[in-house]
């Protein structure tokens, strides 16, 4: 979900995704960078994201991932789901 959300902002390469998640979560969430790749590939296979080789800022060959329509839908669903879960947990925790 986090990966999808990150990619929803802009197409990015794997390193970028890892950096972005760390920075936006203010270093709370640290992704094990390597395990990011199997996840990315699975999503690519499932058609949630698309990949394309391109030039990076420093003129290296890099693989850019982009959200597909299906991915957007999946993200919306998961975000909904997460919101419900979070609210439920919050309600339980706030109950006296």
């Amino acid at each position: 979900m986090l990966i999808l959300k990150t990619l929803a902002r802009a197409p990015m390469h794997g390193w970028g995704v890892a950096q972005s998640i760390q920075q936006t979560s203010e270093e709370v969430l640290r992704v094990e960078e390597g395990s990011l790749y199997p996840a990315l590939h699975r999503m690519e296979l499932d058609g949630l994201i698309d990949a394309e080789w391109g030039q990076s800022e420093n003129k290296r060959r890099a693989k850019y991932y982009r959200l597909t329509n299906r991915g957007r839908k999946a993200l919306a669903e998961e975000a909904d789901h997460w919101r419900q879960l979070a609210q439920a947990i919050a309600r339980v925790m706030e109950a006296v």
Partner: protein
Amino acid sequence: MNKFVKRLRALWRRGQLDRDLEDEMAFHLAMNEKQSGDSTAAQRRLGNTTAFKESCRDLWAFTRIEAWWQDIRYALRTLRNSPLVTATALVALALGIGANTTVFTIVSSALRFDMGVDHVERLVALHPGEGLENVDPRSQPSMDFANLRSQVKTVENLAAYRFSAVNVSDSRALPERYWRVQMTASGWALVRPKPIVGRGFGPDDERADATPAVLLSHRAWERRYGGDPSAVGKVMRIDDVDHVVVGVMPAGAQFPEDADLWTPMTAKDLMNPEFRRALLIFGRLADGVTLAAAQSEVDGVARRAIPGKVTGPAVSVRPLLEMIGVYEARAMLYAMMFAVGFVLLIVCGDVANLLLGRAAARAREISIRIAIGAGRVRIIRQLLVESVMLSTAGGVAGGLVAVGGLRWFENMTAQGRRPSWIQFTMDARGFAYLAAISIGAGILFGLAPALQLARVDVNSSVKDGGRGAEGPRSRRLAGLLVGFQMALCVVLLAASGLMIHSTVKLYNAPLAIDPANVLTMRVDLPETKYATPDRVSEFYRGLEATLGSLPGVTHVSLTSHLPLSGWDDFRGQVENAAGKPGNMGELSGLVVDANYFGTLGVRLRHGQAFQKAEGVVVNESFAAKFWPGQDPLGKRLRAADGRDGQPWMTVIGVATDVQQNRLSPLERTPLFYLPYDAEPQRTVYVLARTAVPPGNLVEAFRRAVQNLDQNLPAQDVMSLENHIAQQRLDSAVFGKLFAFFAAIALLLAWVGLYAVVAHGVSQRTQEIGIRMALGGTRRDIFTLVVKQGMRQVLGGFAVGLPLALVVTRGLSHGLVGVSPSDPATYASVAVVLGFAGLLGCAIPARRAIRIDPLAALRHE
């Protein structure tokens, strides 16, 4: 789906995928390094790149399928490594699978009943019942079609048809004899195929003022009009009545009979008494109606229309399929399926034994694989893949065997007439069956060795060098397989023994005629042109004179039925001993002329043959049935045959019994011979005894008929020996097939027994050596080995015997003069099996007693 395509693309560009992964990781590393400036820290942050790459690769691969592929390659390698086992198994499998596919194709084709009618199994035919006593038989009052059609509710589409031979002539081609079906429009409503050219028949064609119309079969259209669509509208002369061709049916359309032409059945035809006798009434059971319900309703309707006393059913309603010979023989066909199925099971037993033997040698290999982490399920799968590969290869070869077998069967049965839906060629169903049994057989014979091996005790077998699988359990399994093979073999031997016994009886049964050098021919005079008995007699007198004057012809005669080909049923009476007329009843008889007995060489026991129509001849069975212990000469009988006032005729001769019954030739039928002059027939068989080979005269006979009436074709011109061979074809074909299957089964079962006993001896070399060293005589050793082998044979016999008694009951239809539980046959089965068994045990046993105790003890 999309995923599948992506994976496929990845499979295609495997190298590309690897490079991409490499680049992706390298890029990440480079970025990390640039950020932190430290390559070790960069690598640490990223983690184990190889593992990540590996799991990415797995995502893109067809892991499961590739594992199968691995198994297949491995299996191929193993099979190639033991060529002898593989080749033996392949030959056995090819035979077994091939024979099964052949028989399946034959049986499924024969029982398809694809007559162009939906739900053919719901069709019923109405037959005159037995319960009409003292009712004028010629009118068949119970079979009044109009009455039945208007009242019967349980049978829909009630229809009537008549099947007869007609002479077709027109200006286009020579006159020909065609089979014609006249059928009511209600019958046409059931027929699925529609005419490919022109139109079909409707109720309008049945009106009295309708122009006579004819529908051509595809065959007749090709033959007579060369498949020209403009044939529609042409005039065809059928039995000297002009008919307009209205359409052509597609090839293979043959309901209700395999006819060449169809014409409508008009109301006038239905009134014709001569038609009525030959009418066949049928229809389809209404939805949800059982046969019994239809029987009782139809019978009730028929009875109400009959004034006289009815003592039993007036009409009997039976499935239409019962009228088809193949349907009657289906038990026989199923028995044949069983027989080949058993052959395949025996083959599986043999192959399983072969693999079990090899399993012993492979125990070590398997143990190592298990030890280094292969799951047992994976091992079993691997072994099953191997056996299925083996059986698939066997199946491919079996397919070739089946193609050959079908061609052989086709040739063997080419002489006989058969319905057109029966085609002995491999079709889609045959291939599906082939595939199914190939894979099924592979799993079946692979399961035992696979389970055996997967149970291997890893520790002991890795240690002791590959003897782990050869425990007592494995030997017991092999013994069990052999016993099972023997049991199946008993069934097959019994079945083929019965068939052979029956065939021998059939061929040895006295025909009571001399069939050599007799030429036969069928002639059928159309009623339109030969309306009166005088004209019919005149024609045949002329024909007999012409044929008699041909060089090489010594006798010429006429008969209504050839030997082995049935008889006519007459309503008639027989005078009893006191000279009182008996009850009206069914009498079986032939119509023959005076020369018949002389031409065929039928001996007369008493009295003499008739010259004109001064008396009748009866056969011995007839005399024995009606006048037991009395002199039949001078007794009287009369055959009503639909006409009143048929005169009483005196018996002036008694002939020996001639085989007339086609289905059970050994049955003696009481028959009388009615003089042709008393009952001239339009359809007769001409018999001529010749001084030259009868084949030489075929053309001369055809010409003789044409010279007398150029619109009249001569049919079925063939020698009497040929005719008899055709009548016996079923028995000969089935007899050969069963004998063939039994021979294969015996051979395979014997090989199985031999292999197991021989393997046992070689495994026990050491033990036998010890026994001999301790003073066991050679005799003891011999008995020991033979006893052990024969235990399987006896066990197989004990199990196979009851099984055989059940299975062979299906054969009773095809058995002639032999009961399915014929003790002599079973005794010979026991002898054959016992002998084969002893031989199979004695050869390895001889090897066992030759064992040198010293060498045996050192053996290991």
